């Protein structure tokens, strides 16, 4: 076997990454997780294999994410916390804090100089600071998710959204609309809200990296993050695939053992 695959079944999307023995990404894919995790794993892995020019028999497969135990062809499963740390350290081999903003959860993972995890935090049982918050607000405003980044970039001002609760935030937005705020300013406001919710999860001393679907689709949010923290923030080449990459790296480690 010359290839190593990581499959990350997240709450919103399923990601697959295939790497070679050098740890280079040679195939990847992202699909919606839907209601059938096993189907999503098969489809995503199949697409990544096609791109990499390999088949299941050529690969050691590791799974991660909420659906990590729904991948029958995986040799083993690891949590997304460990896999994100592994993937992020591969991209940024130094002590840093990874901020992953996913569809339904956000994670802060502290990694030391040797790539070991020191600590981690996940958001509490609430959509605040996650992709689900952006999805809900976009839905209320009848805006497609892929329009958010462009709209936020156009904003002249930043509308303050104070509420933690997604439902309360939506009500607050209605008030801002009544007061005459523009949609771009509101979108920038909800980006700020996500950043604030994430920053209050843990102390952020040292280098920062970001990953996850929200980051992948909204580069402007990263720019705002940099402005807010006053730090240069590392963004991996495939931000949404950090966990899947980490799983693939664990698969490679398993072969070494």
């Amino acid at each position, binding site marked *: 076997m010359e290839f190593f695959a990581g499959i990350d079944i997240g709450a919103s999307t399923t990601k697959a990454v295939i790497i070679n023995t050098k740890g280079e990404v040679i195939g990847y894919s992202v699909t919606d997780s839907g209601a059938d995790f096993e189907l999503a794993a098969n489809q995503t892995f199949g697409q990544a294999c096609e791109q990499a020019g390999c088949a299941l028999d050529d690969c050691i497969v590791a799974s991660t994410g909420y659906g990590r135990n729904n991948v029958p062809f995986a040799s083993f499963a690891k949590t997304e916390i460990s896999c994100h740390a592994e993937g992020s350290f591969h991209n940024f081999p130094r002590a840093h804090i990874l901020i992953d903003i996913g569809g339904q959860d956000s994670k802060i993972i502290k990694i030391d100089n040797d790539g070991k995890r*020191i*600590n981690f935090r996940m958001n509490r049982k609430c959509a605040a600071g996650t992709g689900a918050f952006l999805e809900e607000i976009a839905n209320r405003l009848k805006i497609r998710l892929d329009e958010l980044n462009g709209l936020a970039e156009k904003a002249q001002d930043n509308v303050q959204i104070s509420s933690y609760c997604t439902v309360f935030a939506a009500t607050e937005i209605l008030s801002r609309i009544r007061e005459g705020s523009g949609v771009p300013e509101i979108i920038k406001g909800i980006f700020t809200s996500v950043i604030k919710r994430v920053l209050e999860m843990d102390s952020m001393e040292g280098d920062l990296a970001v990953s996850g679907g929200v980051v992948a689709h909204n580069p402007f949010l990263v720019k705002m993050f940099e402005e807010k923290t006053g730090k240069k923030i590392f963004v991996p080449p495939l931000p949404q695939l950090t966990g899947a990459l980490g799983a693939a790296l664990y698969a490679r480690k398993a072969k070494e053992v």
Partner: protein
Amino acid sequence: MSADKKVTFKKIKATGQMRKIMADYFYDLDGAVKDETQKVAWCTSVGPAELLLSLGFKVYYPENHAAMLGATRQATNYIPVANAIGYSPDICSYLTSDIGAYLKKETPLSRAYEGIEGIPKPDVLVFNTNQCRDVQDWLAWYSREWNIPLMGVSTFRNIGEISDEVLAGIVQQLKDLVPKLEKISGNKFDIDKFRETMAASKECTELWEKVLETNMASPAPMSFFDATIHMGPAVVLRGSQTAIDYYELLLKEMEERLADGVGAVEDEKFRLYWEGMPIWGKLRDMSELFIGLNTAVIASTYCNSWIFKAFDPADPFLSTARAYTEIFIVRDEEYKEKYIEDVVRNFKLDGILFHDSKTCPTNSNNRYGMPERLEKRLNIPSLTINGDLNDLRCYSEEQAKTQIEAFIEQLEAM
């Protein structure tokens, strides 16, 4: 590592005896309610039970009943009923589930024990606010509902050193209860009976402590999840010979496990502290999750809370005051941190789990920076899980499982 592998759950043989003595206890209480000459007192779980027992009361502990509502996963059927009469979903879910169950005229007692139709209606309600204010509000509701006298002890909270003045105040409050309780019970207070009951309680809780201390060994013979069930007699039967006999039996079994090298968790790799309330409706799931992760959760503040070292039959009032004030929940942050530090060192623990119990702030010690301080102080990691003692709507199983598995992966990589 997968937590979903098949696990071997090692049953404690003494469980059968525990079920029997608990059944006898509830039938005895039920009999007392039907017998006009026999008086029943409700008492908060760390309240002045020995005083009540010495006055001849049969003593019922509503927290034990509420834990049953949680463990049988019935609590969320009842909490909304109490919410609807003005008791917030953010306050103690023991209180809300218990009052809700009463309003729906349902109890797990009648399901578990044939012939028992309801909770035992008391002649007096006695609290100690050492745990929280909610216990007082809880009993106050029943006091209004049944027009039954409510009395108790108000304890200072968040204290470090326990001063003589604090104890003197509590002793006075306890003594003030006596004439009122004498009148209700129809019995004259007898200090020798008080001493006798206290001696029995002391013996019971010392045996319970010995049971818990068997977990200093590796592998540890008893999980926290088992201990939360087996501490039942220490809560409701302390002061009786029955409880002493039970803990002698349980201790013998745990010592046998030690001699045979039998651990609660097969191939024990990690040892953890559980800080905070149990998640009653998830005991079995949690137990299996940790067995699957070869991780023994074996020390806790919760189970240690029914060890009353200060009991001294020579001075029963003062030592009641001291025993029920020196418990962890009453104390300041520095005391609590030192307490956990000692347990972590004595039990050779690898990490601490904090349960942030949504409706139980006084038992959620993660909220004022303690995990961060202890991580530095002890150089071990901690994890905080969000949940609740009884309200399972506040608990996300998938998120908790992922966090726990990730925490164990972190320990493996250290």
